[in-house]
């Protein structure tokens, strides 16, 4: 990483050279993970491409194009579009809230011509870009100054609020974690971090006692002991654990998972796809997939650390962490470690917007990699 390729030392590089610079090993890794997803979607449809695997493959192919296209875009251009993208995403979140009431259907979706998009998915990327953009101009000391911190918290708080009232607990959680992580990476003082963590530790028992409704407590209790309500709310998680556990060491074999094939698993093609994978490929397969994820994440961290601009560092790390939070929450949820929140397994779960968002994120990461040697001054970035 320390040797600077000649081509990239220049301020502008020919697209073809960039194409060679793209880390095709990572693209291969991502493709392998996605193929695991195709296999599971094929299996969950009882050995049919329709209705899930086929469309998913098409979307992944489109995602690959987006990835490469994004990788070729100069990281300074991304920096330039960071605020507009954030503003547009915020606007779309407001529109979807208002338009939802006008009867457009589910509040999370918005129709843009023939394409339906989820503004909350766009916001995940836009928030990372905008925070990285803002933090790019701040020194470590600046981050902890109340003036800047207030602006940063507002940047995180606004979309969090809009997503929370949709309501969409999963995305809210991800946005909060993304935002907090980026502030942490930018060097937020421990003098801020410690009291907040302490406050949260106090707030949880207080909320349990005074704020939460009975049905919400019931939901938490069901999570803590799903078997107590095995046919009701605990059904999903109980069945998911049975699916994973019954896979054993080597799994039941491809196309031979009974739990998913016989519809015991809820949402088997989206949020719970991890369970059918564990059922059919067992401990060996699941660990292998986790290792692939870990390698991708490790790669992301390396890209971040080796980037020369604060914007690229924060963006690359933000994208990587966002990817990691998806995996963590989804896997922990279906394995019964945390309550059920609607978060898909990235690259594997069925879903168009999620797939494209993840690929777009990897495109940004790749752009950071391709342009890792590009230096951007803290002030007056001189955006191309």
């Amino acid at each position, binding site marked *: 990483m320390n040797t600077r390729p000649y081509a990239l030392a220049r301020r502008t590089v020919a697209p073809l050279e960039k194409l060679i610079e793209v880390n095709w090993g990572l693209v291969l890794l991502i493709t392998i993970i996605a193929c695991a997803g195709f296999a599971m979607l094929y299996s969950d449809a009882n050995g049919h491409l329709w209705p899930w695997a086929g469309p998913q493959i098409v979307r992944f192919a489109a995602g690959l194009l987006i990835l490469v296209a994004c990788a070729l875009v100069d990281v300074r251009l991304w920096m330039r579009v960071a605020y507009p993208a954030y503003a547009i995403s915020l606007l779309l979140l407001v529109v979807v809230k208002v338009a939802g009431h006008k009867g457009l259907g589910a509040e999370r979706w918005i129709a843009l011509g023939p394409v339906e998009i989820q503004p909350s998915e766009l916001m995940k990327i836009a928030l990372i870009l905008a925070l990285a953009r803002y933090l790019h101009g701040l020194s470590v000391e600046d981050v902890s100054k109340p003036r800047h911190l207030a602006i940063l918290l507002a940047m995180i708080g606004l979309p969090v609020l809009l997503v929370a009232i949709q309501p969409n607990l999963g995305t809210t959680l991800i946005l909060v974690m993304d935002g907090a992580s980026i502030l*942490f990476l930018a*060097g937020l003082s421990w003098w801020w971090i410690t009291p907040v963590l302490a406050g949260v530790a106090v707030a949880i028992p207080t909320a349990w006692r005074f704020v939460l409704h009975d049905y919400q407590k019931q939901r938490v209790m069901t999570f803590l002991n799903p078997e107590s309500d095995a046919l009701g709310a605990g059904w999903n998680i109980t069945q998911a654990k*049975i699916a994973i556990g019954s896979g054993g060491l080597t799994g039941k074999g491809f196309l031979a998972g009974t739990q998913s094939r016989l519809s*015991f698993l809820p949402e088997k093609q989206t949020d719970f796809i991890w369970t059918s994978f*564990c059922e059919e490929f067992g401990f060996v397969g699941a660990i292998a997939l986790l290792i692939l994820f870990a390698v991708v994440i490790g790669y992301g*961290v390396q890209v971040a650390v080796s980037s020369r601009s604060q914007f690229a*560092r924060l963006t690359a790390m933000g994208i990587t962490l966002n990817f990691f939070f998806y995996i*963590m929450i989804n896997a922990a949820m279906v394995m019964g470690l945390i309550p059920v929140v609607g978060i898909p397994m990235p690259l594997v779960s069925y879903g168009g917007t999620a797939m494209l968002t993840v690929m777009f994120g990897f495109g940004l990461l790749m752009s950071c990699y391709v342009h890792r040697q590009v*230096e951007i001054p803290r002030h007056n970035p001189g955006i191309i």
Partner: protein
Amino acid sequence: MPLFDRKDKSRYTTFSRRALMMSGGMTAVFAVLGGRLYQLQIEDGDQYKLQAEANRVSLHLVPPARGRIIDRFGTELASNRRNYRVMLIAEQASDGVDAALDRIGRIIEIPDRQRQKVLRDIAQNKKFLPVPVAENLSWEEFARINLHLPYLAGVQPDVGETRSYPYGAGLSHVLGYVAAVSPDDKKDEDDPLLDLPGFRIGKRGIEKAYEGALRGEAGASRQEVNAYGRIIRELSHQPGVPGKDVWLTIDQQLQQFVDQRLGNESCACVVMDVQTGDVLALSSTPGFDPNLFNVGVSNAEWKTLTTDDHKPLIDKALSGVYPPGSTFKAAMAVAAANAGLDKNFSVNCSGALRFGNHVFHCWKKHGHGHVDLHRGIQVSCDVFFYETARRLGIDAIEDTAHKLGLGHQTGIEIPGERAGVIPGRAWKLKTYGAKWLDGETLNTGIGQGYVLVTPLQLCTLAARIASGKAILPRVVRVVGNAAQPRPIPDPLPFSQDVLDVVRSGMDAVTNVPGGTAYAWRIPDPGFEMAGKTGTAQVRVISEAEHLAGVKKNETLPWKMRDHALFIGFAPSSAPRYALSIIMEHGGIAAHPHVQMARDILLFAQKRDPLKLPTDYPLNAASAAQASRA
């Protein structure tokens, strides 16, 4: 130009340090996820495998075909027929159960009551379980449903088996019926079949007594089901063991003749083989349609059955107990002859006998004059039997009656048989805590007072006198292909002479002018019947009425009339068929019950089922045993 100013440098080191911390955190999370996978898949894997299998496989019982009940010549008396049903799966009825029922209702009729029942069943059961909407459809109705099936979401036509009694009310008391399992039935048994929806078990008669043999053993079908309980495919199938057929001694044709001859009168009639006790016909009228109980009796039908004063639900032949009246004199005659009161013993009947300070009346107001045993039977002289009873004493009467099959259960295979009463000193002490009175002996002598018998016992009495053997009535001959064990009947402990005297007296009842049933004799030579008439009062006749003349039964309301009884056997010279009949409140001068007995015994002899080859499916061992018997 420096690439990093100092502040940039510090940003970079801070970022790298914190990125490293986060990487450590992420590694820890991956470790936790891997550990959780290890816990679920390796440590608890076996347990979850079991749970997944339990999820996947549902074990269904396959009800066995119920054994048939068949008469001696192979006629099916109870069998299984196809039951065309329409089931509804609530979960699949896309626009609601009501709409689905409306659509079915346009194709086949669904009464309101049935509709309520369906809605109740659906509310109580899981939504994916099929609930029967209509059963026992005709083929045309069933075909119509199948034709419209594409437009009937959630509707499932289904062919099951149901019990069928082709002869309806005839034999209803012998066969009994099957009906749905009640909670009480489950107390004594834990056969999983009892929990099967729609399963039927025997509730009465042979259906109940031979439930074990008829039911068979359940088969099992392991089915793969999905989370909604829908069956995906059958994994394995283990056929059950069909129930065994039960072969009766009944001759359906004779039975049918008896049922028709009794008509709608409140009657009971038993016909049996005098040599073996094989029951050829066993009728209690009016009967009930056992098919009704199988499909479920409506309130109105139940009300009709229970409020009918002819009591169709009571098996009068086995569980009806009646004072035998003068038919008891046949037993008295055996006791008298056995005690030597036949020759050189006569009584002068003046129409009444004073005993102590009580007057015992003869049915004939002005008396029979000199009466010996033979004539006593023929004209049924009460005074003769008062005097005979007085001389014999209650102990001898009790003993003889028991030897002739009265006063205890005969042990027939049909449940619900009653023992009746043959009174005695010990019995009275036990029942009433009082000493036996001599006057009661006299009443016992004419079959009144405490004496109570069932029509089945009366037929046994007639058969024993006719054959001289202590036969016991039996109605089941073969179960499966095994002949039912039956002991060779012992000879009665009475000499041939004793029995001859009684038979000759009974012959005179019907075949000698002056006999109480001479008017209703069988005139065909070789087919003559012997018998004994009887009347059982159901009301107390006061002394004043005796003086004024006992009221004629025809002038009384039906309920107050005497019960009319008759026992007999034929042919008189070499008896083979014994019969008993009772007609409740049938004591009128025309003796309709004796006319019935005459017709039945004549039909029985002309058809002569005992001479016809039976159709029992005996294996070699059983056949050998049967021929020995």
